[in-house]
């Protein structure tokens, strides 16, 4: 049987013949039940159109790679390690469940010309070709000659 859950100001109680839970903050066993989200909740999670599913990011970060390196915003990132010119490590607060995640990264070259693009590469573990589950190494280099440089702003998103 499908169970529909909706509430304009939150959900205080769920009943299914008998009371299942008085407070969703307490442990709630919904095994064997199907939950259908209200239409507005589905809209927030899905793509704007079409039936392809959408997936949440496991981690993300936006940081300055020049001057005083600083994190502008992040999620599930405990720190950035400045390893030298153009070399940064993104450390995850909670590790990825496996090494088969996908990465999206973008960097801008200079504050005075922020539209310029830098090439960002993702360093895998030496020799193995695998990502680490607890961190991700990112390098920034010029598109013209591949030499390392400090990108003005770098954004990284992890999905997996």
């Amino acid at each position: 049987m499908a169970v529909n859950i909706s509430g304009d100001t939150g959900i205080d109680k769920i009943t299914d013949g008998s009371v299942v839970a008085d407070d969703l903050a307490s442990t709630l066993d919904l095994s064997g039940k199907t939950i259908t989200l209200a239409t507005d909740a589905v809209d927030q999670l899905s793509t704007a159109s079409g039936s392809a599913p959408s997936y949440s990011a496991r981690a993300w970060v936006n940081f300055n790679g020049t001057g005083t390196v600083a994190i502008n915003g992040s999620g599930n990132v405990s720190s950035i390690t400045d390893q030298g010119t153009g070399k940064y490590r993104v450390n995850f607060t909670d590790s990825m469940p496996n090494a088969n995640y996908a990465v999206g990264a973008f960097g801008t070259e200079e504050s005075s010309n922020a539209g310029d693009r830098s090439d960002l590469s993702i360093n895998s573990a030496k020799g193995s070709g695998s990502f680490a589950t607890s961190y991700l190494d990112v390098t920034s280099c010029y598109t013209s000659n591949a030499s390392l440089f400090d990108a003005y702003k770098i954004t990284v998103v992890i999905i997996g």
Partner: protein
Amino acid sequence: MDKRIVYTNDDGTISIIIPADCGLTIEEIAAKDVPAGKEYHIVDKSEIPSDRTYRNAWTWE
């Protein structure tokens, strides 16, 4: 967070950890993100140069 964590790499260069606002203390971040066995130092952000021209030549004294 106005603190930074500094440690020396095997090749003599230094790495600088910039903590995120993730709910962990600077000590917890150091314990988690500094490579095992590395001695580290927690310093004020103001102690780190902002001129990175010779970043790869920085050393810790």
